[in-house]
């Protein structure tokens, strides 16, 4: 027993150190005075100031945010619809094909997705004149397509674990399916929708390869700028950017986890209360 738990604790410690030490070092060296990223030259926040003066970087960040918000929103709608059809609609014509198309983007190498979408956009452009030139729109479509696969997984697992009796009760009381869905199912899916949206937002904000393929000269996303400057060598500015991104991600996740945990507890409490009232306690 003793050796086993020692082994497990050290496995955990090693795993988490492996995952977190590089990120911590990035953060520490973002406050380094020296331009050399690996030699400590005293505390300074000058790289943050430099980052906010870098107009190319700021512009790219705005493009990335725009793409991420739009594609996460569309992907959440489409991914939820697909999850609904996978869990609730049983067998329909073409189910097998649909299952393939909705799970394949999860593992498809990015270079293939990027290349194939670019060739689609080019062909469409020569055939019907849309999309004329490539930029924010084409990146948004590309991101929506792979993000909806992730939303589908998240919502599908939530939907499968959902208690259908509440929904059925609403319909027995005369609610139409659409209304029952809007009033009962959608709020219960809430946490899954939030995490699906956040996941899509992050994936979109993070994508380099697919965006590089489908972006025309008109649009440059943040990862594309970061990649080209990293290729030239490492700069403390990137460390500052990394620190900000890690900070935003951590805060968002903690808030989202907290809110979802609280909502879940309130919902459970309401259900217990309702059940108790029914029993006449």
């Amino acid at each position, binding site marked *: 027993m003793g050796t086993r738990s020692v082994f497990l604790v050290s496995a955990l410690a090693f*795993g988490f150190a492996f*995952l977190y030490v590089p990120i911590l070092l990035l953060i520490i060296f973002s406050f380094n005075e020296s331009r050399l990223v*690996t030699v400590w030259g005293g505390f300074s926040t000058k790289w943050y100031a430099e980052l906010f003066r870098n107009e190319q970087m700021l512009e790219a960040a705005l493009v990335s945010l725009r793409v991420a918000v739009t594609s996460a929103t569309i992907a959440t709608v489409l*991914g939820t619809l697909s999850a609904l059809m996978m869990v609730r609609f049983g067998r329909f014509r073409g189910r097998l094909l649909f299952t393939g*198309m909705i799970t394949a983007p999860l593992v498809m190498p990015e270079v*293939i997705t990027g290349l194939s979408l670019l060739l689609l956009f080019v062909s469409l452009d020569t055939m019907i004149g849309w999309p004329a030139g490539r930029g924010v729109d084409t990146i948004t479509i590309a991101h929506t397509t792979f993000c909806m696969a992730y939303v589908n997984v998240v919502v599908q697992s939530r939907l499968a674990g959902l208690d259908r009796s509440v929904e059925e009760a609403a319909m027995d009381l005369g609610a139409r399916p659409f209304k029952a869905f809007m009033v009962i199912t959608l709020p219960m899916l809430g946490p899954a929708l939030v995490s699906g949206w956040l996941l899509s937002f992050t994936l979109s904000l993070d994508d380099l390869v697919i965006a590089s393929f489908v972006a025309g000269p008109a649009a440059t996303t943040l990862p594309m700028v970061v990649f080209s400057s990293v290729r030239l060598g*490492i700069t403390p500015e990137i460390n500052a950017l990394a620190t900000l991104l890690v900070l935003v991600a951590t805060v968002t996740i903690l808030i989202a986890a907290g809110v979802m945990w609280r909502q879940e507890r309130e919902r459970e409490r309401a259900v217990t209360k309702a059940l108790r009232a029914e029993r006449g306690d």
Partner: protein
Amino acid sequence: MSEDNRALGPGGSASRAEAEQAWTQAGGGGDHRRLTRLQRLTARFGRGTVIGVPYLWLLLFFLLPFLIVLKISFAEFRIGVPPYTPLLAWLEGGYIQVKLAIGNYLFLLQDPLYVTAYLNSLKVAFFSTVFALLIGYPMAYAIARASPSWRAVFLLLVILPFWTSFLIRVYAWIGILKNNGLINNALMALGLIDDPLPLLNTEFSLYVGIVYSYLPFMVLPLYATLERMDVSLLEAAEDLGCRPFKAFLTVTLPLSMPGIVAGSMLVFIPAVGEFVIPDLLGGADTLMIGKVLWSEFFNNRDWPVASAVAIAMLVLLVIPIVIFQHYQQRQAERAEAS
């Protein structure tokens, strides 16, 4: 009514007509005879929209692009817009001439660069998967056996790196591994080495980068199966005199097989086509197929050859992708059944 709906699960055999009937029944609550024509139409329309919109989206933006890649892989390179020859040509008299150039595929087979790149990608992806499994399995096991409140914290810690930029996590290793990086500086300061060890742009840094980036994908499915496992089975084995290690080998390991398969596929498949990690951490002589495709497309601007590389990569990945999908399907059905 609930019976009706349950029969609609993937395991059921309800026909389309029955499905529609159940859906319209649901629309009328208990008494479906009172349904008006209009209500039935809206219900059918609702179902049509739910199925139609995502279906059309994926047909247009997922399936059609692959067909186009397939088509262009049979075209020839030319200088112009678009930079490939058309497959179909209208001849006089209403004939259609189809020109399939298999030259791109022959080129891939004959040039040792491509064959080496494919084999090397498979090798790197395979060993990365093994390393990720070796690190990830004990982690997932320890998390699954922790107390519920610790479990939540550990899971959050596994997921968190996934939410921070992938590119930046790869970038972090450059500062650690390069010649005047943190490891070399520390080792030289301790006097253990005189000259910096070549760590960056080697196979070693390539593996570190891939395992590091994909570790959460390995841990999460493993955790999911290990957490669901019935611990009493292990206790029974130990009560019957089985040594802990043997109990692990004969009970836990086989039961966690679905997690091992899913996690391995989630690491292996994207790793084969990885571009960013070999480009930033791998050496100049690191040949991986994703990198080859990238340079064929962006540097040589040869779209037909890039398409042929993509199709060949897909053929290589079809078996693992089918295994992965089969597993996903089973998971979904099991979640519904429980």
